């Protein structure tokens, strides 16, 4: 049977992959997808801890994380659409001014 450590290491690997995506990629949509990978890595560790402690709290906080992720995706993608309309690009390096 996999232990708590196994789940935490898998979660850490996924979180590091998500961070790498945010730092390396130059495409806003891929950056948002990498944030989703990070949120899922944290969800996995919450559920694993909840299972180890024998409580239901881990699953409930995952529920809230998913709600926040849905809100973040909706607002983030709306911002991406607005930015793309102004600059015709998805490269974050083109969005350098606060106002235009």
């Amino acid at each position, binding site marked *: 049977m996999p232990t708590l450590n196994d789940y935490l290491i*898998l979660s850490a690997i*996924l979180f*590091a992959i998500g961070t*790498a*995506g945010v730092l*390396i990629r130059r495409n806003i949509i891929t950056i948002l*997808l990498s944030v989703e*990978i990070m949120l899922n890595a944290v969800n*996995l560790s919450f559920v694993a801890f909840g299972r180890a402690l024998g409580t239901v709290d881990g699953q409930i906080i995952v529920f809230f994380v998913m709600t926040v992720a849905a809100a973040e995706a909706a607002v983030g993608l*709306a911002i991406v659409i607005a930015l793309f309309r102004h600059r015709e690009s998805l490269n974050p390096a083109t969005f350098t001014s606060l106002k235009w």
Partner: protein
Amino acid sequence: MTLFYLFGAVAVITSLLVISQRNPIYSVLLLIASFGALSGLYVMLEAPFVAVIQIIVYAGAIMVLFLFVVMLLNAPHEETEQDERLHAFRRQGPLRFGAVLAIALAAELTWALTRGTGETGAFQGPAVSSVQEIGKALFTDYAFPFEVTSVLILVAMVGAVVLAKRDA
């Protein structure tokens, strides 16, 4: 244990492919596969409720939203080619630090987790996994956060409509 390695390998490999694809559509589809593998891991952790909402809400709703936006924008991906073509370590200036920082984080997390003392062993005790228990906790102990969530969703909905409006 075999299942754990199978689902874990699928999750890690598809996540790596997500951040290495040029075309965002492939990234989104691979991320859905990654969520499927995570859902299998939730089943192994005896959390069927989380496994099901992972598929229905994450893969079914959030990722479809992403796919919809990717197809709607129809982004010209020649523009990003310019520096995506270079390897992450061989770009100029600050872009290189991103790759170095990511490697550093992975090394630190691995170091921190492998030096942990005390083998945890298999999970003990029965799992609390029934939807009844989750619902009871959600509407008693966590009733206030649950209600605040509805306000958050409302704000996100209004914000998305305002931001994406054509003449905002």
